[in-house]
Structures are given as structure tokens and as C-alpha cells.
């Protein structure tokens, strides 16, 4: 077992893990932050997407020890300070960007990463950015719409209306 310390959603946390402990296992099992989901555990579905040092990563495809000293953000840290939904979360609610909700934490984290570097993405850019996030309910359409809306853009003319 090795010790590690990292900042998760602004709080310093420590733990002791094996080499094989995945970052998502540390977050869910040790920190009990179960908003980060494990859908496939094969790096394909994106339900475990979080930010490490500001960058979108799949927490099932990184070892916890590799995040030693890092700044980690998960879905639990996305809401506003007063507990209300942030603009991306609110847009997912307003535009019905989820049905079962399993993929949603990853979708929201992916969207947050996109809007940070590209505040006004095109529909195509959003769809390309979501290539590593799989949703089996919505057909993606309302997710794309929600992200467009969260970026302050008109959503009336998006494809497949």
C-alpha cells in the first residue's frame, strides 16, 4: 500500500491504496463520491469522466497513484456554492438531456471541459467532443442541445428537429 494525497473538489484528501487501485475506485470506494460512475470499465463509455488538473480523463483508465498531488474535480463539485445546479446541469434539466441519468455525470464533466476551452462550440464540435461518452437513452440529441444552451447559444435550429 502507498499513501497519496490529492485535492478533490477543493478539499484535500488522503488515503492509502494498492498500485492496482484505479482512480475511479479510490473516488468511489474510499472517498464515497459515487456520482462518478463505472459503465464499461474498458475506457469506452465515459461515465467515469472527471477532470484531473483541469483536463478531462477517464477515471477507470488511470491509477489512483498517478493522481497523487493532483487537483481533481468530480460531478459532486459542479453545483453552485449555494447547492443550486450550475449552468450546464440546469441546461441538461431544461432540455431533457437525460433519461436514466447513468451517463450524465460523465456528460456534464465532458461538457464542462469543452466549454472551458471553447465557450461557443458549434453543434459539430460538441458531437465530436462527446465521442468518448456513450448514452443509450437519449440518442444524444438533447444532450447536444443542452450543451449548446449552456453556452448561451440558440438551440432552435439544431439537426434532426
Amino acid at each position, binding site marked *: 500500500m*502507498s499513501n497519496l494525497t490529492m485535492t478533490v473538489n477543493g478539499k484535500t484528501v488522503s488515503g492509502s491504496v*494498492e*498500485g*492496482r487501485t*484505479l482512480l475511479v475506485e479510490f473516488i468511489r470506494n474510499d472517498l464515497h463520491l459515487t456520482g462518478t460512475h463505472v459503465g464499461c*470499465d*474498458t*475506457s469506452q463509455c*465515459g461515465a467515469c*469522466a472527471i477532470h484531473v488538473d483541469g*483536463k*478531462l*480523463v*477517464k477515471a477507470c*483508465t*488511470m*491509477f489512483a*497513484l*498517478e493522481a*497523487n498531488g493532483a487537483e481533481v474535480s468530480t460531478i459532486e463539485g459542479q453545483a453552485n456554492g449555494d447547492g443550486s445546479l450550475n449552468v450546464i446541469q440546469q441546461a441538461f434539466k431544461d432540455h431533457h438531456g437525460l433519461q436514466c441519468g447513468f451517463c450524465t455525470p460523465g456528460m456534464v464533466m*465532458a461538457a464542462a*471541459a*469543452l466549454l472551458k476551452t471553447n465557450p461557443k462550440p458549434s453543434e459539430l464540435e460538441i458531437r465530436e*467532443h462527446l*465521442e*468518448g*461518452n456513450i448514452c443509450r437513452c437519449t440518442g444524444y440529441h438533447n444532450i447536444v442541445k443542452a450543451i449548446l444552451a449552456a453556452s448561451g447559444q440558440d438551440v432552435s435550429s439544431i439537426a434532426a428537429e
Partner: protein
Amino acid sequence: MYNFEFKQPKTISDAVNALESDEAQALGGGQTLIPTMKQRLASPSTLVSLTAIPEMKGICKNDDGSISIGGGTTHADVASHSDIFSGLKTLAENIGDAAVRNRGTIGGSLANNDPAACYPAAALSAGATIVTNNREISADDFFQGMFDTALEEDEIIVSVKFPNPSSSSYQKFVQPASRFAMVGVFLSNFGNKTRVAVTGASEGGVFRWSEAEAALNKNFSDDSIIDLSIDHKDMIEDIHASKEYRAHLVKVMTKRAVASAS
């Protein structure tokens, strides 16, 4: 996952020392190796992470115009760097997905030499030099077949030096589920010399299509490719594409690369 000893050296020399133990394996960004270990297709007893070695990260332009990319540099950092030539930028920004590109590294991709990986085509086409902890290997000597390279057991890709072609293009026909290249063609044009490297197609891994290069050296036009054909007998065949289809795609992707780089 089965357990193993995890090491995270801070310097190249410490990493090389750690790799000297039996059944030790270097870990780049882990976007291939971690899923492979979960399936027990790889089971090193010691894993030596290369992600905490600052001297292996970053991109710089050399005095001779070439570009050196640290072996631990992620695809996302290659895609967003202003000194990267267009074909290589396109290649890096289309590997996997956004999250994979934030972890996966150029050194990891080249060392693994997956027959459908993108980076080997760029390195071979541009005539890159693979710089390890103890020597420099030209791309022509580096790739030795599917998942096989000239690297020794305890050798690490410290950086990759790319000549800067006057024009370049990477054309990838993606396998629609995995997004790996069903066939990918990287073309580098150095004015009087063109190099064409193909990934995804051959049982032998990445290769140069010398007939296309000869034709393009005479006349750099997609018309030069029309009458060529490539033997399909060594092509990969799987549920996604037959040998003949892959051979055909090599020609189509090469024509697109020429048109795009013209």
C-alpha cells in the same frame, strides 16, 4: 485487476533502473496498457509509470527546423501546439476521444506499435528519429512488425524528432466502433521527395508504399496514383474489412492525402 508493484520515477535514469527488474513494464498514458491489463492480456509484475518525468514532456523547435516531441507528451498537447505541422496536428487531434487524448502519449503509441495506431504512420512517413535513453533510431529501422519495435526491454522513448515537411496530410478511414484506423495514410512532401506510410492495413504493421512514393516523386499529383495497385496478400482481414477492401482503401486514402497536401 491483479496486483503489481507500482513505481513512479521522477527521472529517466531512475525509470531505466526500475525497468531492469524482471517482468517490469513501462506505462505511458495507459490508454492501451491499462485496458490490456484488465483483460490479463498483459501482466507485468512491476509497472513503471513514465508520467511523472518532466524531462519527457513538451515540444520544441530545433535549430534545423525539426521538431522534438517528448515521449511523455499527450496527444492533446501535440494537437494544440503551434509548431506542429498540419498532417501531424490532424492526426493527434483525431486519436481516440478527448479524454483519451489527455492521457495517451506519443511515446506510448510508438513503443506499442499497434498495427492500427496512427502515430507510427506519421513517424515513418516524415522520417522521424526515435530518441531513446541510449541511442537514436530512424523510423525506417524502428518498426519491425505488428507490436514489435527495435526497443530493448529497458529502453524508453525519451523524445521523437520530426523533420518539418513542406506539406503533409493524414487520411484515416476509421473503423466505426473502435475509431482506430481501418486504413490510415500519412503523406509527407519534402519538395523533391515524398514519403507515404500506411497503418491499419498490413499484417506486418506500418509500412511505406514505395510504388506510390516513386510515382509521386515523378509527378506530385493524385493522377499519379490512379494506375497503381497494391498487393492484398499481406493485408489484415477481419470482420470489418477483407484484404482486398483494405488494399483498395490504401489507394483511396493515398489519393486523398495527395489531394489534401497539394
